[in-house]
């Protein structure tokens, strides 16, 4: 489904095929805006105290910060089809997945700020965002999300419900042995699993060409008898169309699917990344495909939203993001003694 240049002549057909309607698309637009504004807000806070010399240890947000700006359509296109009982296992780049899955933005931000009100009471940080009420799990270890999501899918299958599990990962992670091991297990046992690869062309500073013998992953999936879709990850409609088939297939008991979504991260791997491995021109080229204005254009063209509506949605999203960050900033830090509690349940 990947197109080098977007052509929209067939838009209505594609929307119909994807089972989308105005409400879903407006909600998706708002959610994508929320992710974008949330991450921008967090980014601005992150750089406080780090501008003269960049030092990860500086407050108010410490540690690494992996932004997903440019990946919003993938997270939203997939998670729009999930309910709270479905599981998502995410990676080091997790904010967009958490927000798309419906995790509370305030508690999310508070976790990143290391506050007692954070999702994990400040113990996890941005690579360890857990939210039990949304069945959201996370790991900072590349490749670890696949088997864990397969395990959740295995649970659902044993429990006989229609839930499914989604593993998100980057394209770099798909080179890890867990990818093929999980494909085999999921296909063997027909687990209700969807693996979503956000192919943003880089793993850290390593471009795809230096790490992969073949340019795409979907053949690997197919060689395990797992159907796979290569989609335009900057196009929420394209993502949604593939995700719907994958999710239906999983819920109906037919087994796993891989969605390989080509997208781009506009920021560095993490904040502070020297980005010496790619050119400014490349980034700008991809900026022309920004999934958020692209969806706005389409909503306008379809007559499903005018400027005022879109502005309203953006402002509502911005409001949510601002509230979330304010909640985080206003929250108290955890008590030091908390550090010693909770190793065992």
């Amino acid at each position, binding site marked *: 489904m990947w197109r080098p240049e977007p052509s929209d002549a067939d838009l209505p057909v594609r929307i119909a095929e994807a089972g989308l309607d105005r409400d879903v698309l407006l909600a998706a637009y708002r959610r994508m805006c929320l992710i974008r504004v949330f991450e921008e807000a967090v980014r601005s806070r992150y750089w406080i105290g780090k501008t003269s010399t960049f030092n990860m240890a500086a407050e108010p947000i410490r540690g690494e910060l992996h932004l997903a700006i440019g990946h919003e359509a993938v997270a939203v296109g997939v998670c729009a089809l999930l309910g709270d009982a479905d599981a998502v296992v995410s990676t080091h780049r997790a904010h967009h997945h958490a927000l798309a899955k419906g995790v509370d933005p305030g508690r999310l931000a508070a976790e990143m700020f290391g506050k007692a009100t954070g999702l994990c009471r400040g113990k996890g940080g941005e690579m360890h965002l857990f939210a*039990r009420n949304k069945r959201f*799990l996370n790991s900072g270890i590349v490749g*670890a999300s696949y088997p864990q999501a*397969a*395990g959740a899918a*295995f649970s659902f299958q044993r*429990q006989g419900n229609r839930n499914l599990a989604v593993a998100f990962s980057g394209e770099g992670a798909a080179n890890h042995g*867990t990818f093929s091991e999980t494909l085999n297990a999921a296909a063997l046992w027909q687990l209700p699993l969807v693996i979503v690869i956000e192919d943003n062309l880089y793993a850290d500073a390593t471009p795809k060409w230096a790490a992969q013998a073949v340019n795409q992953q979907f053949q690997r999936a197919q060689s395990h008898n797992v159907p796979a879709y290569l989609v335009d990850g900057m196009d929420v409609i394209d993502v949604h169309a593939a995700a719907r088939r994958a999710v239906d297939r999983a819920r109906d008991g037919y087994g796993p699917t891989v969605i390989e979504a080509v997208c781009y991260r506009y920021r560095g791997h993490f904040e502070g990344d020297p980005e010496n491995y790619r050119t400014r021109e490349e980034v700008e080229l991809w900026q022309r495909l920004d999934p958020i204005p692209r969806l706005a254009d389409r909503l306008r063209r379809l007559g499903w939203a005018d400027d005022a509506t879109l502005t309203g949605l953006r402002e509502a999203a911005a409001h949510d993001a601002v509230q979330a960050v304010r909640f985080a900033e206003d929250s108290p830090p955890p008590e030091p003694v908390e550090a010693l509690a909770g190793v065992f349940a």
Partner: protein
Amino acid sequence: MLSGIAPAISEAIDQEMAGNPNVVVLGEDVTYWGAVFGFTAGLFQKYGRERVIDTPITEQTFMGMAVGAAATGLRPVVSLMFVDFLGTCFDQIYNHMAKNHYMSGGQFPMPVTIVTAVGGGYGDAGQHSELLYGLFGNVPGIKVVVPATAHDAKGLTATALADPNPVVIFGHKLLTGHPGVPFEGEEEDVPKDPYTIPFGQAAVRREGTDLTIIATALMVRRSLQAAARLAEHGISAEVIDVRTLVPLDIDTLVASARRTGRVLLVDEDYRSFGTTGELAFRIQAGAFDRLRAPIHRVAVPDVPIPFAEPLEQAVIPSVTRIVDAARALTGVPATAR
């Protein structure tokens, strides 16, 4: 009557499975072979492939599946066929299973029980004869169970299966009772009904006054034999079975050390940077003023387990070496043996 820890462990799993449909068994060859040494023997025949599942040879994936399954309502029992294979899946164990409860601020307990076969002495060489429980004890978040008797094995497994945390049960092959490897255990009167044995309670297996021998698993057996021989030499050895390394019943160990004033640690794991060091630290911290001699240890002298019989016997602690060390510690010169 039961011979060996393997039937004891499988019985405990069986009794838990009967009452709890969320318990599933995952691992390599857990069906036909009962996880090779019998820890899961009979379960497949009773519960079928729906609940007793052979996996492909993909340790990191089935351990990772256990993490995801435990987070969503199942209670996985996972077989790591030989502990020596931990290097292929340690990430899922120590970075996820062990940490997710803490890192999630208490949201995701990880009720997973891992059963693994450990130990040498029958010629399985460097990649199939290790103990390695020291590694598991070193990283936070994992309970470490090292049974020496079938009775303990059953009760401790039942406790593990009721524990909301990751627990690893280290089943010593020479105690399993599995035909094919030597058996150094004995027939025991193990209650048929379910029962539990709490973690963190060491057992004084023999009382004594001259020195305290502290051991786990197979080494408890050998220490008891050594104690019997020492008695012939007029040395009264107390023998303590640690039973669980995490949590550790340091009070019992320290109390005994304070009484006897001399401690010999006997361990089949590698000597350095592991279990004996930790026990020594804690004992000297608690019994410093009562120790009459430095703490001694007998352990595998930091070499891989070699294959040939004379070589293997030279590195795995034997009754003779325990006796000699105890005699040296109590001031009686070691025999030439």
